[in-house]
């Protein structure tokens, strides 16, 4: 017997149905394009206006120039403000990372009395609006006749960064495989050696991302800083003060550079992580 193989008739799908099917399949993709466009519009604006030859007020496009990039400190005070922000950021990050990592180890690794209230004390600063943190700390400084300025700002930044460090490092500690430490102990490493050669290297990426987070929170903070810095100018304060009459293009140069710098750090971090994983 021979079987006749018949071509199945090609089903014809109406045009409208095809469109709606294509749309159904790609709706998330289309959404992503819109979403990312939305996310990057302000960044693009900041970047484009860093090339604006506008003099002091940078609100309206005049003409293209490289001058702002060649001379980022050209506007008065801008680099002084940037320097202050970097100094405060480094100090606050270092202190907050050390204190926060210690707390994260205590909460993440030990069962002890008062553990849940410790968690609460870590959660509260994150659940308190910045303006309340800033205003209450200023009241305390005024009460003790401490003038707002550089060190009060550092203290304020450490205070609100600690919680974020704890949460980040704690998450990393929680994700560790306890078998690795047991293996080290089985190989006759004592507790300190186990910590130094196994636990700490494994937690290190968590500590690094906590430090990055702390630095970016500190560098970008305006509200708490505004309350506790007195006459000291930081970069966000500089932008806020000059926002009314238009910020100089040099601020856009610095903002764009921060963007590219942070992007580079994160991408390099991802590459290192990817290489290690392989």
């Amino acid at each position: 017997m021979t079987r006749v193989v018949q071509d199945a008739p090609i089903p014809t799908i109406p045009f409208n149905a095809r469109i709606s099917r294509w749309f159904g399949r790609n709706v998330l993709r289309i959404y992503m394009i819109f979403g990312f466009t939305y996310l990057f519009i302000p960044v693009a604006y900041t970047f484009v206006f860093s090339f604006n030859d506008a003099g002091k007020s940078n609100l309206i496009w005049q003409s293209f120039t490289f001058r702002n990039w060649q001379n980022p400190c050209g506007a008065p005070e801008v680099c002084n403000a940037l320097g202050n922000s970097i100094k405060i950021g480094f100090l606050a990050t270092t202190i907050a990372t050390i204190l926060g990592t210690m707390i994260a180890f205590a909460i993440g690794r030990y069962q002890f009395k008062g553990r849940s209230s410790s968690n609460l004390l870590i959660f509260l600063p994150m659940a308190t609006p910045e303006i309340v943190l800033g205003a209450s700390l200023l009241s305390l400084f005024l009460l003790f006749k401490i003038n707002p300025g550089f060190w009060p700002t550092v203290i304020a930044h450490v205070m609100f960064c600690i919680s974020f460090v704890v949460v980040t490092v704690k998450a990393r500690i929680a994700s560790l495989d306890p078998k690795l430490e047991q293996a080290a102990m089985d190989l006759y490493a004592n507790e300190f050696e186990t910590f130094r050669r196994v636990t700490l290297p494994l937690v290190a990426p968590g500590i690094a991302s906590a430090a990055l987070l702390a630095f970016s929170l500190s560098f970008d903070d305006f509200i708490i800083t505004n309350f506790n810095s007195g006459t000291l100018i930081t970069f966000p304060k500089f932008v806020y003060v000059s926002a009314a009459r238009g910020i100089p293009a040099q601020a856009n140069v610095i903002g764009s550079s921060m963007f590219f710098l942070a992007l580079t750090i994160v991408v390099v971090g991802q590459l290192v992580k990817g290489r290690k994983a392989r």
Partner: protein
Amino acid sequence: MKISKAQVPYLLLFPGFAFLFTFFVLPIINLAQTSTQTPISGGDTGQYTQTFAFSNYIHAFTDNKDQFLRSFVYATLATILALAISYPLAYAIAFKSGKFKNILLVLVVAPFFTSFLLRTVAWKQILGEEGFVVPILRSLHIIGQQTTLTSTAFAVVTGMTYNFLPFMTLPLYASLERIDPRTIEASGDLYANGLTTFRRVTLPLSVPGVVAGTLLTFIPAAGDYVNASILGSPSTKMIGNVIESRYFKIVDYPTAAALSFTLMVAILILVTLYIRKAGTEELV
């Protein structure tokens, strides 16, 4: 002296907690004290004495109830908008981006590395007369020829939505990414279509991310005054603007303290109720 094992956690906690106690707990207690003080008669501006004047709270609230209400309305709107924008984005990155996952995740956070203030100023330009949004909306007759977007509630909410977006996207992504793909497969095997799977499996499993994200967006939004002062007008003033001006311009510490304390307590109550309702206790 040998340290016993039971002491280790306390020793680790001590420096950080001493710091938080001095610079977070004490200031809040001091804030509560300041809030019931009244001016010294015949004293200079900025000199106050404790008189347990709880009426400060009544005055502070009745004088500023519009700003309070506005703060909560704007913050709620910004939170809902941020959730609507972030959820599909986080979903797409978690489930549909394949090998581009890490790159897209970096790209979602990247815009927020430019300064918060610069981003807000950029929105002022985008929504301003010289920006591209106003001409487009005018030519499409969505807004009238005379209507402007800057110095409006619309601009303030837009700025807030944008500025606090990563606080929404990251927790959402974290909770979506953690979902075991097998639960989604299982749902498909049980003949659920895509929508049902999403509604009955994915969405409920992502609730912790939604709760964390909405809180992390709502709290800073409710206390914010930067967006309102750069993008808004006197008629869009929020409670943050009032506290700021009470502190710096009027030097009325008790009222500022009473307002701050009220804001903090209101937010804590809302947060507690919300966490109870949403049924996730493991936020931190």
